[in-house]
């Protein structure tokens, strides 16, 4: 009998990851596998560790134990077990494999919309200025901002800034895109335009892990929902199951009940 590799190996493989800030344990042996093309939404009460988990995936936060692999390669450490950090150069290269979109946009205020996108293309991907400009314009077109290429972030609305933020991340052609509460800082009327962009990326097959409070969007756009509580994965499954009424998880049920009470 031959052992064949699994048909669909995990692109992102988080296993047994733990992390503490001082005496507070924010992640407790979290495990999560994401396969290519999947859209995984992480929900949970604040302080449940969702954002920290996301930030560990591109090593903006270090983790104390466990392992996070992207395409089989350990993210922040040279070798598992030794916990030897990668060199600055190595780490930068690993981080370029993931894209991240931030709650507070974090656009570079001194660069134009196109400039924000071009910086990584030129300095990390080594593209020429003309090439980078063409790619930037392509992605700005995709997020509906072709006409804003030469605008500074301060001249854009919040929704427009966040769409540039998304374009900046995906233009690097990351293997996986991390979205950290990307609509939380937006006025309600601007949320839709940003989620529309995310939806179209999902349709293109972009692998994504997102933390969000937009339950309706999570239900429609994700292939899987992960519910985190107290630093651990408390429930995970298809949206219909997790957001459905039959789920046998007291914590999740009370979270959803409280959530619905405050949002409707």
């Amino acid at each position, binding site marked *: 009998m031959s052992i064949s590799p699994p048909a669909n190996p995990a692109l992102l493989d988080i296993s047994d990851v733990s992390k503490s800030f001082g005496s507070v344990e924010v992640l407790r042996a979290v495990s999560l596998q994401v396969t290519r093309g999947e859209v995984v939404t992480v929900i949970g009460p604040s302080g449940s560790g969702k954002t920290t988990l996301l930030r560990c995936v591109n090593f903006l936060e270090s983790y104390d134990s466990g392992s996070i692999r992207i395409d089989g390669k350990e993210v922040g450490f040279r070798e598992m077990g030794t916990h030897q950090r990668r060199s600055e150069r190595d780490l930068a290269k690993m981080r370029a494999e993931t894209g991240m979109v*931030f709650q507070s946009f974090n656009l570079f205020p001194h660069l134009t919309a196109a400039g924000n996108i071009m910086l990584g293309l030129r300095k*990390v991907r080594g593209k020429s200025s003309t090439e980078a400009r063409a790619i930037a314009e392509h992605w700005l077109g995709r997020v509906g901002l072709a006409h804003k290429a030469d605008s500074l972030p301060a001249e854009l609305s919040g929704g427009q800034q966040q769409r540039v933020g998304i374009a900046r991340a995906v233009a690097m052609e990351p293997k996986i895109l991390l979205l950290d509460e990307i609509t939380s800082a937006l006025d309600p009327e601007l949320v839709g335009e940003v989620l529309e962009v995310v939806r179209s990326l999902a349709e293109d097959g972009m692998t994504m892990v997102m933390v969000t409070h937009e339950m309706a969007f999570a239900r429609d756009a994700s292939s899987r929902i992960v519910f985190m509580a107290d630093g651990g994965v408390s429930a995970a499954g298809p949206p219909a199951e997790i957001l459905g009424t039959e789920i046998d998880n007291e914590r999740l049920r009370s979270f959803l009940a409280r959530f619905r009470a405050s949002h409707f």
Partner: protein
Amino acid sequence: MLGQIAYALPFLAQGFAVTLWVSLLVVVLSLVAGVMMGVGLVYGPAPLRWAVRIFSDTIRGIPILVLIFFVYYGLPAVGIHLESFWAAVLALTLFKTAQVIEYLRGAVGSIPKGQSEAAMAIGLTFRQRLAYVIFPQAFRRFLPPWINGVTDAVKGSALVSLLGITDLMHAINQVIGRTYEAMPLYILGAVIYFVVNYALSLASRRLERRFSFIRE
């Protein structure tokens, strides 16, 4: 009286040139040293941060005059012989370096953490983050106080006259020693220092106003 002063003008001009030369050296050297140490203070490992902190707090805690005497008289005592000109430049550079460290810390510290994180997330290395994301933004906050602080180098340079270096201050005192025209010469000296420094502080204010239009 005016004739005597006119006669002394070339000599005063030479002194003024020395004042400008000392100031220029101090400003350039302290900029290099201060930016490097400032980066160490903000991003360095703990021992380096402490070392820079202690350096800056010590230098800023003592009078420039004491620093100048310490370097000028102290170095030969431990076997290091510097010309008085270079001893003066070294002492003033130490003083200015501490200032530059604090300007840099203030400027870099004012940039939100998210900027570094966004730069990390697209895969920039530490040096790239500094060069393309942090410094271009910090520059606007650094420049106005730094230019204004150049006046401290110019004013501080007047103290090197005490080491027998013929800068503008010393030249004025020497001319007074010969002509006894103390008041006109001190006023002339004050006017010269004033013109240089006031121009610098005006430039600083204009830059500040210009940069304030660039929103974050």
